[in-house]
């Protein structure tokens, strides 16, 4: 006989898995696009490599933020609730 508290824990783990698993799709795709275009831009204009790399990193950081939200929700589900 499975305990009620056990099922709640099971659901919390499932929610954490969905949150981080599905939530990792977007930042991956978005940051990849940013990196690709940065490479292309540096290839066309190597003199500006420093500025372009900096812009790419800032843009990727913003894209990363939603992935961090998913990570936070996953950690909350694993350890807090």
């Amino acid at each position: 006989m499975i305990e009620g508290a056990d099922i709640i824990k099971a659901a919390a783990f499932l929610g954490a898995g969905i949150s981080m698993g599905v939530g990792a799709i977007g930042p991956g795709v978005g940051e990849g696009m940013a990196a690709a275009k940065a490479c292309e831009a540096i290839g066309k204009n190597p003199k500006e490599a420093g500025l372009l790399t900096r812009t790419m990193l800032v843009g990727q950081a913003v894209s990363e933020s939603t992935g961090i939200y998913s990570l936070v929700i996953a950690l909350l589900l694993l350890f807090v609730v």
Partner: protein
Amino acid sequence: MAYDIQTWVSVAAFTGGGMAMGFGAIGAAIGEGYTAASANEAIGRNPGQSGDIFKSMLVGQAIAESASIFALVIALMLLFTSYPSHILSVPVLLGAGLCMGLGAIGSGVGSGFPAGAACKGMARQPAMSGRLTTNMLIGSAVCQTPAIFSLVVSFILLFTDFSANPISPTWAAILGAGISSGFGAIGSGLGGGLVAQASCEGISRQPLTATPVTNVMLLGQAVTQTTAIYALLVSFILMFKSFPATDALAPPMALLAAGICMGIGAIGPAVGEGFAGQGAVAWIARNEKYIADLTRSMLVGQAVAESTGIYSLVIALVLIFVV
């Protein structure tokens, strides 16, 4: 059920919270990545404008981010608020999580498109920076409205007291409402973004056409938003109509099917109308003399694309009211 109701409510809350943040993170991240990519391309072409382009990129990314903030808010509410120990809380929590999670996808990606086009446009025409920023803000704001519809439906689901309604078929009505607005927001967000992207690019190529391009952009975007409004309408009907109690399986399945029908059926027409608007706006910028012909073609084409969206609405209403 050997377990008490509160167990299942907690199960639904955590699963719904996970879905809300998981799905909600996809769209905004892809849209922001696209904006960063376009900003890099633009700075590579015109390093002297890097300050303006960088600022524009951050503002555009902030708008795309708002959709995932809505999803974070709903996820946190699902995790940490206590809900009534009523069996209907289970579909409420799952429906709210699904609704906001899915609803954030289209708006996040869609808001990234005009921001990217604005960044590229500033590299091409630095003098139009102000106008491009305004256009980007207007276009992105329209793109966010489907995510706001999803947020509204999620809030209504979370804060309405369903305890007076019969358990069956209300559980299906609640899930159907969440699914309808959740999926229904995807296409409109994407479609609106495509039109706004074309308008920013058009203004940068032909600054003198800024006003007609913006007007047709708003017209084209308005048409793409219609299917999200149909989905919102179906959600409201499912949430607020009182259904007679039933023991059979068919009536709840009809309500769930109505939500699925309108939700998924809203995606395609909106994206297609977005392509139509994108084409029309891009060529009005190149060929302002033919704005009347182009606008007429866009509207006729969008009306034909809308047809399957109307069929979905009709079938959803038939499922709710007739069978």
